[in-house]
């Protein structure tokens, strides 16, 4: 086992580079589940090739955990079956998706739509997580999303809602610090307060990414380097959760792999500067097919 913390997203732009099996500075890769679970094409072969050398996390965008379906048909069984099949094939160290809804029975919006922070939503989502975790036979992590609107009916602060979901369901939080910053700026709350409210023990992974200032609002584009303010929030978070695996996301205007690696190196430097010589015994194992789950990586020092 190695002390292994910083990952990057696996993107098709970098396939030609990665199939050559270069030496990289990254410790693990995150793959978008839907890009591989419905295909037997070249992408899946590349994911398996990458998996030979690296731990992999699977990150979905279509679970739609918060979609309020009827009680007798609560989750998409076909989706879960296909996801489980991919999980068995890839043996990821973490399986995650988003704390959001992506559509209704009438159709899929293919976007990460924000949830009203109400008791009804809380109860429903916790029950859905229970169903999903039972179907997959493992704990999942859910990511806080960027949002451009909230709802008048919400009765919880977002961070309280996220923590309550994790506490009641036993799922992990995929803590996206860029999303915290984007939503804080858009909705006028304190990003620091949000970061401080998330208990380290519930966090299974951290995401870092860039966003775009459109003048009227911040937009979560994943098209730029991580900004200084988000690096600051990252320092604040990892001081309490130094063992959590960290991912650099870059999904639009994707640069050369070396540029992505530079961002990963910076994340590692910030981590080392922040936690100094403190033990980071957890992390992601690279040895063998089955890497340990992140539960081992979430103990506060």
């Amino acid at each position: 086992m190695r002390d292994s913390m910083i990952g990057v997203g696996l993107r098709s732009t970098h396939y030609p580079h990665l199939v050559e099996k270069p030496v990289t500075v990254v410790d693990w890769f995150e793959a978008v589940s839907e890009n591989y679970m419905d295909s037997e094409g070249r992408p899946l072969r590349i994911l398996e090739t990458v998996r030979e050398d690296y731990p992999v996390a699977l990150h979905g965008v279509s679970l739609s955990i918060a979609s309020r379906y009827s009680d007798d048909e609560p989750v998409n069984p076909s989706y879960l079956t296909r996801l489980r099949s991919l999980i068995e094939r890839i043996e990821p160290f973490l399986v995650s998706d988003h704390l959001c809804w992506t559509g209704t029975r009438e159709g899929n919006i293919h976007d990460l739509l924000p949830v009203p922070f109400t008791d009804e939503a809380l109860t429903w989502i916790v029950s859905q997580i229970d169903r999903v975790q039972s179907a997959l036979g493992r704990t999942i992590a859910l990511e806080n999303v960027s949002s451009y609107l909230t709802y008048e009916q919400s009765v919880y602060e977002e961070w309280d809602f996220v923590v309550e979901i994790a506490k009641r369901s036993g799922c992990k939080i995929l803590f996206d610090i860029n999303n915290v910053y984007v939503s804080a700026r858009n909705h006028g709350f304190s990003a620091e307060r949000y970061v401080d409210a998330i208990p380290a023990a519930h966090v299974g992974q951290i995401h870092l990414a860039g966003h775009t200032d459109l003048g009227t609002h911040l937009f979560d584009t994943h098209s730029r380097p991580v900004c200084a303010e988000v690096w600051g929030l990252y320092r604040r978070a990892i001081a309490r959760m130094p063992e959590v695996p960290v991912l650099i996301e870059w999904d639009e205007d994707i640069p050369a792999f070396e540029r992505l690696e530079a961002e990963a190196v910076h994340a590692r430097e910030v981590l080392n500067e922040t936690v100094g010589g403190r033990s980071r015994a957890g992390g992601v194992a690279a040895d063998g097919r089955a890497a340990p789950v992140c539960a081992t990586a979430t103990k506060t020092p």
Partner: protein
Amino acid sequence: MGLQALQDALARAIRAPERPDSSSLGIRPGGTLDADGALGVYRDGYTARLTEALGETFEAVWWVLGDEGFFSVCRRYIYSHPSRETNLSVYGEPFAAFVAAQPEADGLPFVGDLALFEWKFQALFHAPAHQPAGEPVLTKLTGAPDAWISIGSAVFLFESLYAIHEIWKLRKQNQDDYERPDVDAAARLVAFKAGTECAVRALSHAEFAALGALMDERPLSEALECAIEVDPGFDADAVASFFHTLASAGLIADVRVAGEPAR
């Protein structure tokens, strides 16, 4: 408003062709956006995401119609065909018939076939590859006219009155600098997966007929009769060339000779 009612109302507002009244949705907009603007972020994202998905699948149709034409067709398609899948790459199954009936396709009679070919090609890309038969299996064909040849699963035939393959190959070309093909030249194609790569080959009329018969699980002798029926000049050399194509492209998954049990 309950969670399901809220989601139904918001989803309808996002998918609506015309800007809806957002006042009843109980939205608190972010940034300096108003409620319509905040809803607009998701409305714009919806059409952009589905247009991008259609553009990835129907790349050659996009090339032919140009940005303005393709995006107009996509907008109408998206508003009339909500996505019901979790996977965006399978969005667009009825697009071929849809685009062929649009005014943007006037004077471009091949567009429907081109779109259908692209749809089948993306399905092939995601399909599992079959294991091509090796030399020991292929040698069973020697002197065995009653053999059955099993064609692999990662193969499809495509026939059109138009030069679909030539038009499709243009999709990576600069719009201002390309050699215009004779679009009215009929195309008979086989598309297949070799390893993780997909490829397309043009077939003669006779080869197309023979391969079609094999894919219908008819014996080799009947397949060759089909070839001769459409081209009486399909002689021994042509047969040898046909077998070479089948073997070199890895299209043959198995060979069974008379008396050998089916697998």
